[in-house]
């Protein structure tokens, strides 16, 4: 991977709340109101993504994975850090190309998002041909004469019968609607798709159809994906690289195969152990204890220490930094030791789930 990354996220953070409106700020300044709590939804996240790669972002609710996805897609402004697409900042990509540069649309369209709920992400009053065709028409990606044929082609490619292009979204099933959402994203010829739980709401047999469609599109169009999901089985199937998040921070990242076969961070291990699998029968679950802490009041030191079976005094006081533990692999844990030859040492005995 010597070429320039298509997406580079460096030291991105996002905080919500905090200041409040003018009145709240004045009251706070006069000492009449308590400062409002601030949620650090995403904290100092960095990674790069090469063209054609699939990055899986996993974590449980409240870990900041959706916030991260929305920042990459340009729907939220990062509070700190920057997100570059093909080396360009978002503002530069918003600029319309000068006249006469051909039919190239603003580069901001290179990034498209596919949402979880195919019921609420499609305008119920628009026909499918408008849902898919509006953006390419407005951005003059196709001429008005060619629009109909263009929409038909895209519907065909996404597995929707083009004969249905005058129907409304409610006349389709959940899986079909998700295909319309994908067709709409593809209509502006994006380079990167951010899929936020894009298959989570679908039934298993439909989910398989959509995952296959994503993989076909990747092969045909060379798309790059940021695939956000809480479903580790799906992510393991589709992703090349994995980022595991816990309470806004990356706790482990690396090639999917290595992370799933040999997870290093205790949280990653707990997650992977906890996933029910078809070939694990009558499992005696030995789950990790406790709840996910509130992001309003994260624990001191390592965020995971209250639930970690291996926590030491150092974990309770000092937050571990994300560091390289092997070539291409990073983790944030005090307990992982690395040799000079950067092979990973077994950290400690882990309570492995027993079968029987």
């Amino acid at each position, binding site marked *: 991977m010597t070429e320039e990354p298509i997406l580079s996220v460096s030291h991105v953070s996002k905080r919500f709340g905090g200041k409040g409106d003018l009145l709240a700020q004045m009251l706070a300044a006069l000492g009449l109101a308590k400062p409002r709590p601030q949620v650090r939804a995403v904290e100092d996240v960095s990674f790069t993504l090469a063209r054609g790669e699939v990055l899986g972002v996993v974590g449980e609710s409240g870990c900041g994975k959706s916030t991260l996805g929305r920042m990459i897609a340009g729907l939220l402004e990062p509070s700190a850090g920057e997100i570059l697409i093909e080396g360009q900042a978002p503002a530069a990509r918003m600029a319309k190309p000068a006249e006469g540069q051909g039919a190239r649309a603003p580069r901001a369209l290179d990034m498209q998002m596919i949402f979880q709920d195919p019921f609420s992400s499609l305008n119920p009053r628009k026909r499918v041909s408008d849902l898919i065709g509006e953006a390419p028409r407005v951005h003059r990606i196709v001429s008005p004469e060619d629009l109909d044929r263009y929409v038909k082609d895209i519907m065909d490619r996404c597995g929707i019968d083009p004969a249905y292009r005058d129907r409304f979204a409610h006349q389709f099933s959940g899986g079909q609607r998700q295909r319309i959402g994908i067709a709409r994203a593809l209509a502006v010829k994006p380079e990167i798709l951010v899929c936020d739980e894009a298959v989570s709401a679908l039934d298993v047999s439909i989910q398989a159809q959509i995952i296959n469609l994503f993989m076909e599109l990747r092969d045909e169009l060379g798309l790059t994906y940021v695939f956000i999901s809480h479903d580790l089985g799906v992510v393991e199937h589709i992703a090349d690289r994995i980022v595991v998040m816990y309470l806004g921070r990356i706790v482990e990242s690396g090639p999917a195969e290595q992370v799933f076969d040999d997870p290093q961070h205790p949280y990653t291990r707990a997650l992977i152990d906890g996933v029910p699998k*078809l070939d694990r029968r009558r499992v005696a679950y030995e789950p990790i*204890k406790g709840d996910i802490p509130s992001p309003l009041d994260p624990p001191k030191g390592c965020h995971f220490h209250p639930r970690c079976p291996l926590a030491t005094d150092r974990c309770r006081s000092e937050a571990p930094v994300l560091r390289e533990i092997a070539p291409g692999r990073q983790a944030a844990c005090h307990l992982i030791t690395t040799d000079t030859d950067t092979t990973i040492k077994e950290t400690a005995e882990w309570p492995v789930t027993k079968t029987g």
Partner: protein
Amino acid sequence: MTTVLELRDLKTSFFTGDGELRALHGISLSVARGEILGLVGESGSGKSLTGFSINGLISPPGRVVGGEVRVHGEDLLQVGPEEMRQARGRKIAMIFQDPMMTLNPVLRIETQMRDVLAAHLKLSRSEARARAIAALDEVGIPSPEERLRAYPHQLSGGMRQRVAIAIALLHQPDMVIADEPTTALDVTIQGQILSLVQRLCRERGTALIWITHDLAVVAGIADRIAVMYAGRVVEMGPVDQVLDHPAHPYTKGLIASVPTRRMRGEKLQQIPGRMPALTDLPEGCPFQPRCSYVTDACRSPQEMRQIGPDHTLRCAHPLTEATE
């Protein structure tokens, strides 16, 4: 093993302007003491409706139109409303997907638990409180005395589901029906709930029907599996038998469409099309439009038949090693 629950040819229909919509086409199954039966199916297969029908929770325009729901031999469809009320909670209890909907948002946990206790028992305030604390403690809720004063919104999703389970188990029912209780929960919390339910079933000998769309969850906890499609049980048998040697093409398709680590990056096998609407079921086997083994024999109605010890099937062309 004593049979706790037995369904015989349970039929539920909805009566609409378009006539009778048959949602359950004769469900027959049984669950023994201490056994966990996984009831698996996709949306619209009738798996939740089966749970609701057993509990007598079908409201108009729906109605249970035939069959028997026998709990320890007594047919609950024949008893009056008062006896049904007596049975609910004491003999059979239900755990729902969304604990926010089962718990009353404006009442403290203690009030809700006392109400449930008072439904079947005459207890003093302090006795009821002691029972509630013991029940919360059993489902692994830390400092139960304090939690009793909490309102549901003050608890996390996993805690709420624990409270709902504690309430369902207050009267030590013989039969618990759990309708997707972990679907809305995170993986680590799901693991906690699964381990809890497993332990309670084993210790008390409670029979459990675990309704889910997630085959992997069922693989982890169930003893037997019943696979539903379009209001029918199409295959039923021991977990290992059904998952390792599925005989129904639909079961096989479902298993193949679950992403597993053995085929990372490969194309998933997919079942073409989707489940037909109730209004528009084909004659005979409802799976035939999506099935690749379909022949003329599939156009006549299929009966459930025995194909192995404790393994039953509703299909004209059972898959064997030879046909696969």
